[in-house]
């Protein structure tokens, strides 16, 4: 079983939670157990950590990436 840590900017609805768990369970080919955290600094989107990799879909990281690209 894989432990997931899901961080989001606001409380996630049960439907979305289910969807996330199903997606990751399919992708990792393993049963998952998710823990949900809230971090307003993310601004939006979610960040999922499966113990070895970070799947970062937060608005904050996207903005940071964009800023770096512009600097380049």
């Amino acid at each position, binding site marked *: 079983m894989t432990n997931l*840590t899901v961080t989001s900017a606001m409380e996630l609805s049960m439907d979305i939670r289910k969807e996330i768990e199903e997606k990751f369970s399919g992708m990792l080919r393993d049963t998952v157990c998710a823990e949900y*955290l809230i971090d307003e600094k993310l601004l939006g989107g979610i*960040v999922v*950590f499966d*113990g*070895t*990799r*970070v*799947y*970062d879909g937060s608005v904050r*990281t*996207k*903005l940071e*990436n*964009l800023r770096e*690209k512009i600097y380049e």
Partner: protein
Amino acid sequence: MSNSYEFITDELKKQIESHIHENPKTEAGRIIACGDGVITIDGLKNVRNGELLYITGGNYALAMNLEENYIGAILLTDMEELSEGMYVYCTGEIVSVPVGKELLGRVINPLGEVLDGGPSLRTKRHRNIEYPAPAILNRGRVNEPLYTGIRALDSMVPIGKGQRELIIGDRQTGKTAIAIDTIVNQKDKNVICVYVAIGQKASTVNSVIHSLKKHKALSYTVVVCSTASQTAPLQYIAPYTGTAIAEEFMYEGKDVLIVYDDLSKHAVAYRTISLLLQRPAGREAYPGDVFYIHSRLLERSAKLSESLGGGSITALPIIETLAGDISAYIPTNVISITDGQIYLETDLFNSGMRPAINVGLSVSRVGGSAQCKAMRRVSGAVRLELAHYREMAQFTQFGADLDEETKATLAKGARLTESLKQSQYSPVPMSEMVTELYIMTHDMITDIPVEEIRGFMTGFFEFLSVTDRSILQRIEKTKQFTEQDEKDINEILLAYRKLKHYE
């Protein structure tokens, strides 16, 4: 018009889309504890020892402890923004710094960031700060002298290119002064210098940089600076950074001189890290591998074989002792690693003997074969005579009646000691050194009072430079001291005596 406007926005949107979605390529972990410049990370199962880690928000750390359930890492940047739960990513690299000739004349920190307020570095190459030392077969013989410009050293404790010579002594005995003098003496000698300040006071480093600038030595010197206010990890990597910079020049076939000022503070920084990482403490609370951090550092200083370009790194590590105790842990370690040491003493320093080199305890294990013929010819007697003198001086302290022979030995020793005194920032060229030692060891100015010797010699060399420069130039060029040279010097000395009415 509106068409092209839309086109541009669409293109931008596409580009932005393609850039902001990045799939996770590298492994990640989370910070479970942080404090005192050390972080503990959960995850990162495949991290390698010594790997550079990236922490969200632009911070970096160095993986040091790979335990079964967690990773211990040391922070290379500020830890103010760090908090528990932050993600840490593997980078697959070890710490590297910019290298190359663009660094000459610059002051950088151990991460390669500019500190002197000048333009940012535009180097083409980077180099890992940890790198294996040259293998046995890739090494050449140390057979070329590296002149320090200090009479007492070049005659009795000669240093060769590719040698590691330790400078050891209490605080305030002129350790840094010897290193700086050596750097100043490398002007126009095609030697690149690297000065690594480890855990020094910022004011001290500042004055070193200023004196290098003042003596026009900064243009061929790189200063790597980690001051006492910086974190222990930065102080710990500083000498490796300096060596990486020096190595780049060495593998290009150039000669490099590197000064580590000082390695006792480096050991202390490493002890701090080790204790924070909860590694077992050994003697004097240093961890078990404190010998290895210095041996692997100093092994990288070497003379390369001709097939590899024949470059060299000459290292002058500095160690500060407490109350002259050279049998403490770190001093004995570094003494056993290096190819000899220059031992400085407080008593000598206070009695006006500067540089305060204890000639009896200072040795150079390879330098003798690197001395040029001219120097070897005149310096052989000096060491013996001084040893003889010291023995006699101790014996006769009780004020007994002395026979003529002892008196003569004492007088000669005092004279010789006096002639080896030298003020800071006044390096002496090899030819002048040879000439002076010749005059001193052949009892040619026994009539000059001891306290007037330095003045006499200075005057003599001024006289020599206006009358006949060719002798010094000849010695400098052929690196030999012939009988003809001896004859010429005898004549000039006679002329100078007449001029000054010393007859």
